[in-house]
């Protein structure tokens, strides 16, 4: 499914740890319009678990989390449009 979704913007936070993957993701989402898709590339285990938990609280929607080998993950999120 996820290959049909075309991301509006890609955020690569590989190599970054506590708190940057989370904060950068949330900041990017805030600046996006409703329905736009953010693709996040990350390799920090804690954020892989925590970002999905927190973004729903802001009203964003998690489309998919895909493990792309080892700790690498690709996350697709639909922005709620808080701008």
């Amino acid at each position, binding site marked *: 499914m996820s290959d049909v979704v075309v991301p509006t913007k890609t955020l690569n936070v590989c190599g970054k740890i506590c*708190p940057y993957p989370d904060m950068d993701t949330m*900041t990017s989402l805030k600046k996006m319009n409703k329905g736009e898709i953010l693709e996040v590339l990350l390799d920090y285990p*804690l954020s892989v678990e925590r970002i999905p938990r927190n973004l729903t609280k802001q009203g964003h929607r998690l489309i998919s989390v895909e493990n792309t080998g080892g700790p690498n993950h690709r996350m697709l999120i639909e922005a709620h449009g808080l701008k």
Partner: protein
Amino acid sequence: MAAIVGGLFVGVLFGFVLQRGRFCMNSAFRDAILLKDNTLLKSVLVAILVAMVGFALLATAGLVKISPSGFFWGAHLVGGILFGVGMVLAGGCASGITYRIGEGVVSAFAAAIGLTIAGSLTMFGFLKPIKDFLQKSTTIKVGDANPTLANIFGLDHTLVAIGLAVIIGIIWLVIALNNKEKPEKKVDVPLFTAIFKKGWGWLAAGISVGLVNVLAFYLSTLAKRSYPLGITSGWVGLAKLTIGFEEVKEGVATKYALGFGDYLIVGIILGTLIAALIANEFKIRWPGWATIGQTFGGGLFMGFGAITSGGCNVGHILSGIPQLGIGSILGGISIVIGAWVAAYLIFVRRNA
């Protein structure tokens, strides 16, 4: 011998638990404010309560001696706040940057080098006079003892520690029962997967950290160190070995020999490496030079702050507060204040 075996053993356990439990105190304090997520904060509180009861029981059995950090308010405030600012820049607390080296996080290694350099300079280098001044000019004692929540009122330590843990536990339970939070979705997975492949829940992580700390206190007492978990002094110990630091013992200059706290650091990195390899989460992560510079700088603040304040987040919050040390309580609060100020300046204002 007790130092090597005990330090490495506890270190490996601690590293394993930190990696699996995703235990991160830097995130714990920040998440609660910025993301309104107090999952990690609950984990920290559980670890403190378990250690508070465990330490008191060990002390009552005569197996350890409660040895709270000294109380020097000026040094706790200045050092703690600088440490808190540093840990936000470094992307992890003292335990966080140490264990993530075992996950292959290069920026964590850069932060640890910064922490070690500044910590060493503060312990025995040109920054020492600043630390000594801040500590000596603001020291307060109860008789000959370092003040704790028990001895300032002349009360028995075990009574206060266990009483306090029970009261906090009951209050928490009442709040939790009234605040009908939706329980997290439980997914049934085999035990091996739950332990070695998935991140642990906050309760399991908190209890594990607390129990490892209780074990650390006992084993470090056997190694004649007599303090639970701590991070910064271990790094400084490794630096002393590297530069061939000599101490004068009974009039004779002696080469520094590694102790419990130093082996603890080696063990933490090993334990994390093992956990990360099993979970397939090990990867050399290169974040770019700008991040390396930032985390190294953060490490410098942390090193000076921890040695000046007499403890890092682990020494004060995980080990000192459960011993009811007033110094650790103030040191811990200062770290949180520093972290919040830094997080506010970096994240909230930047995005405003």
